């Protein structure tokens, strides 16, 4: 019985439309994450926070007035909502980035993680604006008057992938330009980059805000797909799904994020299809976090560069080993052997 249900779901176009839309959204987000983390070296663990800002901004300004008990519902058209979301997210990214980017990589990570949680708490507590924990259970979508249900979903799928293509084109442009090179230089060797005249702090903030604005543009797409908004949606699991997809696909590669997202989401969503008896319900819910976790650990252990490596993207030849490299490698391996507790061998050195 359950197999039949699964097969029928697999063959239904609605399922695939929905899944492919989600993949498109995650792919855009992960590509943007790649720009700031993979190329820019800013390990951002708070990407869901920016998504939340964009989503809530869009939802709040486009909701028809009177539909929800909130104090602010201007009921703007969809395109205005999108622009507002982009602007708001950009502003928030600027305000967060200004202090946060001054901190070390480790602390930047913590700060962004913290900010994402702060935004979620704000969403819960500013009930007048965000309708609290209940949130909004309907979202204004474009073209609603022209298309119905399945047709609308198909149109939105095309729009989503159009956006994903735009983001891909953007990342491709960045990767081939001086901007991209400056980013990677800043990531790999900041003092050298500074000495070359790259204005590192400005570049960092610029990139962070750019990514923020772009995420603000993707957020409405997410709302069109999800069709509701409440604080529970914007949990850290979203951030880490994107990160796992990024690591899996290959950090700092160009197409890697898309590949990683496709593989990860296909896996988790297909497992969701499996009909489980009530006793195994818990295991079923646990599959998503388990998958993220296991994939992350395994990929980092066995192929940390991911499926598509940066080298392939940028066509760099492996540096030829110099004598210094060989000597350093020998010393490193000796120290590793010592580190494994071979104290006796240490004497033999």
């Amino acid at each position, binding site marked *: 019985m359950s197999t039949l249900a699964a097969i029928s779901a697999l063959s239904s176009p609605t399922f695939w439309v929905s899944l492919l839309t989600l993949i498109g959204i995650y792919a855009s987000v992960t590509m943007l994450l790649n720009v700031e983390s993979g190329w820019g070296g800013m390990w951002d663990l708070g990407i869901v926070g920016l998504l939340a800002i964009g989503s809530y901004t869009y939802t709040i300004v486009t909701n028809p007035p009177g539909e929800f008990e909130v104090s602010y519902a201007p009921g703007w058209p969809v395109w205005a909502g999108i622009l507002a979301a982009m602007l708001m997210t950009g502003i928030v990214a600027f305000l967060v980035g200004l202090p946060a980017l001054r901190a070390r990589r480790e602390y930047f990570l913590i700060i962004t993680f913290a900010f994402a*949680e702060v935004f979620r708490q704000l969403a819960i507590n500013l009930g007048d604006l965000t309708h609290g924990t209940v949130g909004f259970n309907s979202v204004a979508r474009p073209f609603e008057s022209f298309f119905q249900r399945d047709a609308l979903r198909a149109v939105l799928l095309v729009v989503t992938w159009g956006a994903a293509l735009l983001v891909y084109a953007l990342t491709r442009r960045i990767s081939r330009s001086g901007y991209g090179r400056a980013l990677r230089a800043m990531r790999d060797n900041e003092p050298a980059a500074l000495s070359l005249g790259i204005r590192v702090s400005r570049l960092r903030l610029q990139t962070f805000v750019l990514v923020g604005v772009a995420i603000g543009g993707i957020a409405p797409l997410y709302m069109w797909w999800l069709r509701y908004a409440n604080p529970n949606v914007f949990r850290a699991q979203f951030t880490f799904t994107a990160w796992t997809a990024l690591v899996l696909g290959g950090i700092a590669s160009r197409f890697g994020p898309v590949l990683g997202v496709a593989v990860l989401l296909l896996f988790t969503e297909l497992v969701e299809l499996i009909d489980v008896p009530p006793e195994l319900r818990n295991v079923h819910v646990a599959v998503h976090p388990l998958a993220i976790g296991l994939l992350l650990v395994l990929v980092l252990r066995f192929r940390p560069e991911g499926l598509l490596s940066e080298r392939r993207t940028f066509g760099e030849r492996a540096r030829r080993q110099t004598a210094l490299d060989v000597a350093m490698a020998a010393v490193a391996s000796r120290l590793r052997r010592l580190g494994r507790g071979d104290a006796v061998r240490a004497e033999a050195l």
Partner: protein
Amino acid sequence: MQHVIFGLLTGGVLAAATVGFALIRQTENILHIAHGQMLALGAFLSVILITNAGMNVFVAGVVSMLVMGVLGVALGIVVFRPVKDEGGNVLLFTSIGLAFVIYGAIIAIFGTVLRPVPVGFGPRIEFSVPEFVLVLVLAATLAALVGWLLANRSRRAEHRAVVGRWAELWAARGTGVALGLATVAATVLFVLATQSDGFGADNRALNIATGELGMILLSLGAVLSLQFFLSLTRMGRWLRAAASNPALAAVRGIPVRVVSNVVWFIGSALAAMAGVMIAVRRGGVTSPLGWENILVILSAAVLGGTGSIMGVMAAAVLLGLAMDVSALWIPTAYRLVVAFGALILVLFVRPEGLFSTRRRAEQAA
């Protein structure tokens, strides 16, 4: 005023977990996000032992600590040792991955419903504000006395140099300033709290349950024992050596792998202890317990800085105090926001942490 007691309780319970986290961070160089999940797993384990096996809460706690300690060692060997050389970011994301695996395991095994814990706290002791202040002053004097005694009694030069860290906690310039500021902040909070609630010498305005007092003392005791362990035992010295310079420690013949295992054991056991306490205090456990707590632990550890265990504990207690006393003026829902606000503020004023003995401020990477 009662909020101060709440704050001390929150901070005290978190101190154990935070100290474990800080220990792992300093020795293994990992921001161990999965620490929060170890806390949750320890909590769940003890709840199962109490409700299903009918164990006494203390026994359940100890069993949970031991089991999680062993699990921690196993995970350290299997998951972290192979990637040890890869650098901080790989380690961090491995820890995050592990956190999700444990989180998934918790959901799979225990489900997402709330599990209540029927544990009594014992009779409530009532006391007044001046009595409370007296106790605090006595405790501080006692601590200073013990520290001074230890610093001077130790004959072996290396012991003195390191146990002298206790005294250094008060002596180091930057730390002294930080501690002074922290004391001022605490006093101000204290005074403001009494103003809001009314100050009465005979008024039995404060109360604490025996069980809660027990929790604070246990947590404090655990951290203190760890400090003694680190300062006065051979293994403790090895641990500190490995934390400051692993390559040199290995060359000197310190069994780095054994030290690593000990660190994982202690860290995970402390997380379990905190988990049990949090579960008992709340009266129940739910699956997001790990994620809820890891951010506060992270903040407290960063706040405390690298360099001293007591500093991290002090930071945890301070953070707990800030979170709960702020409830007097800010809605309780914003507790976490207060914690992060404190963290972010400190990261800009003193990036190496409040009680760090390192003077070098940490620059942007």
